[in-house]
């Protein structure tokens, strides 16, 4: 297991390098001048040249990348052009809300998707199945900022069940505050998981081992939960893992609506201010989050699936 993780982490190195290069180039291609953004309306050519020199923007782009890599290795992510502070400090502070939001919405997705998937799979082709599928598709297609706001109107404004937006100071308050944003994200992801589960559970229920389980005289519930679901959950989790990128992207929007001080909000605002070091690190962090989540889901898969366990780790 350990060697497997080590191997996966080693494989991440070229990927991480690729990410840094892509991020670096991408950010440099954004039109607009950070010097001007920093100085605002008071920009004069002299002031701007000074700022550029201070930021190292006057060097060749290759050199800039090498310098960037060198400082990355040293754990130095640069100083935010906008806030004038170490980016690392700024970005790391924003990771927590985003990670919490991600985890939270993953849990909510599963809480929604698993029963719905079970219902749809066991009722396949019947009324409940059709209704669930239409609802799921609707959840998939609607923009999350809009559903988020509708949820606020419904659950916060009309029924006063949740705070409207914000993050909160204590963990309790945060979990309470983040419920709606997490739900909003989950509404986009749960349908994907539900559909995957519906298919895989449908398949699992038709598999030979289900007959074996029933032939043992197990009650229907035990057959469903401890046999069919155990197997069917794996592809569903795989789909969840594959769509983490989508979920992560979604947080960008949702954080904006719900005023969650996370990476997504930071990303949008630093694109606005051409805060290169910040954009670089945010995107890098997003990349790392996604890669790590892939790793985690793969590990989860391995833990849950003895078939992969051996072939992958061997």
């Amino acid at each position: 297991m350990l060697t497997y993780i080590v191997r996966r982490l080693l494989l991440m190195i070229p990927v991480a390098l690729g990410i840094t290069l892509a991020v670096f180039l991408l950010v440099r291609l954004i039109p607009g001048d950070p010097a001007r953004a920093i100085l605002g309306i008071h920009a004069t050519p002299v002031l701007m040249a000074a700022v550029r020199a201070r930021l190292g923007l006057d060097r060749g782009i290759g050199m800039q990348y090498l310098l960037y890599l060198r400082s990355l290795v040293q754990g130095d992510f640069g100083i935010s052009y906008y806030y004038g502070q170490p980016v690392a400090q700024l970005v790391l502070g924003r990771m927590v809300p985003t990670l919490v939001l991600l985890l939270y919405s993953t849990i909510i997705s599963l809480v929604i998707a698993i029963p719905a998937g079970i219902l749809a799979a066991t009722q396949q082709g019947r009324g409940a199945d059709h209704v669930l599928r239409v609802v799921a598709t609707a959840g998939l297609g609607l923009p999350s900022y809009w559903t988020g706001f509708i949820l606020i109107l419904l659950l916060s404004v009309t029924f006063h069940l949740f705070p409207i937006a914000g993050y909160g100071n204590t963990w309790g308050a945060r979990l309470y505050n983040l419920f709606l944003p997490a739900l909003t994200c989950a509404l986009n992801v749960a349908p994907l998981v539900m559909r995957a589960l519906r298919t895989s559970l449908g398949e699992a229920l038709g598999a030979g081992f289900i007959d074996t389980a029933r032939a043992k005289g197990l009650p229907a519930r035990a057959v469903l939960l401890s046999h069919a679901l155990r197997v069917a959950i794996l592809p569903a989790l795989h789909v969840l893992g594959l769509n983490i990128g989508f979920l992560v992207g979604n947080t960008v929007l949702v954080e904006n609506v719900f005023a969650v001080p996370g990476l997504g909000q930071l990303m949008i605002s630093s694109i606005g201010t051409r805060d290169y070091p910040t954009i670089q690190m945010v995107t890098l962090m997003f990349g790392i989050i996604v890669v790590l989540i892939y790793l985690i889901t793969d590990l989860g898969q391995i833990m849950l699936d003895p078939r992969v366990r051996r072939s992958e780790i061997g």
Partner: protein
Amino acid sequence: MKHWPRNLKLGLGLMMGWVLVAVFGPMLLPGDPTAMDLMHSLHPPSLAFPFGTDNLGRGVFTRVIYGTRTDLQIALFCVVPAFVIGTTVGLVAGYFGKLTDAISMRLVDIAVAFPFFVAVIAIVAVLGPGLKNMYIAVAAVGWVSYARITRAEILVVKQADYVQAARLLGFGNTRILAHHILPNVIVQAAVYATSDAVLDIFLGSSLGWLGLGAQPPLPEWGLIIADGYSFVSQAPWISGFPGLAIVLLAVSLSLLGDGLADALRPELGRA
């Protein structure tokens, strides 16, 4: 045709309906989707304005109908390039394996590491807002899924006896790829494309909201929703109807996808 699964027939029918709306709807409607009438702003739905009007007095109905064109276009232009690039890469990587495979899969790994949405936002920020740049951004990152799907399928199909048979019969690689492998792997990608299209419409409307996607006054559902967003409680019809349209299109597409998947199963399975 008579053996087509019900989902497929339904999905195709609905999609055909959408295409008809997109093609003929604007011809049948007298109104201009961008013409403002400041005297009639924020009218609730009525006979004259079936879906009401927005704050600039434009008929939401007219805009939604015209928007069908834009949104079908988004679905098409986002999906097709990603599909073509992705399946080609997947095909080549999966079939030839070795170095080609290793290189393209590392590329895929990198592209996958960027959350799709984040990457699209970043790229659009680089290229400038607008649908055209959104298409470019989606193509730049969206091919990855197709490449993965196709490659995974190929690795299976490549081993199939009928491909081995084709080799034995002395067919060249191109022929085997085009006639024996492609038709059998493309389907999974096509099924995925239907759900990808839903995702792209979602993306389009979100980018519209961030001001990076379609630009006013272009009638586009996501943009109409965004326009109506600030009026949700006052004039819910502005964002409600295009929202409904998105849901309906999404349902049509997913029926089509499910139908395609159903249609292909019995053929592959053991009859």
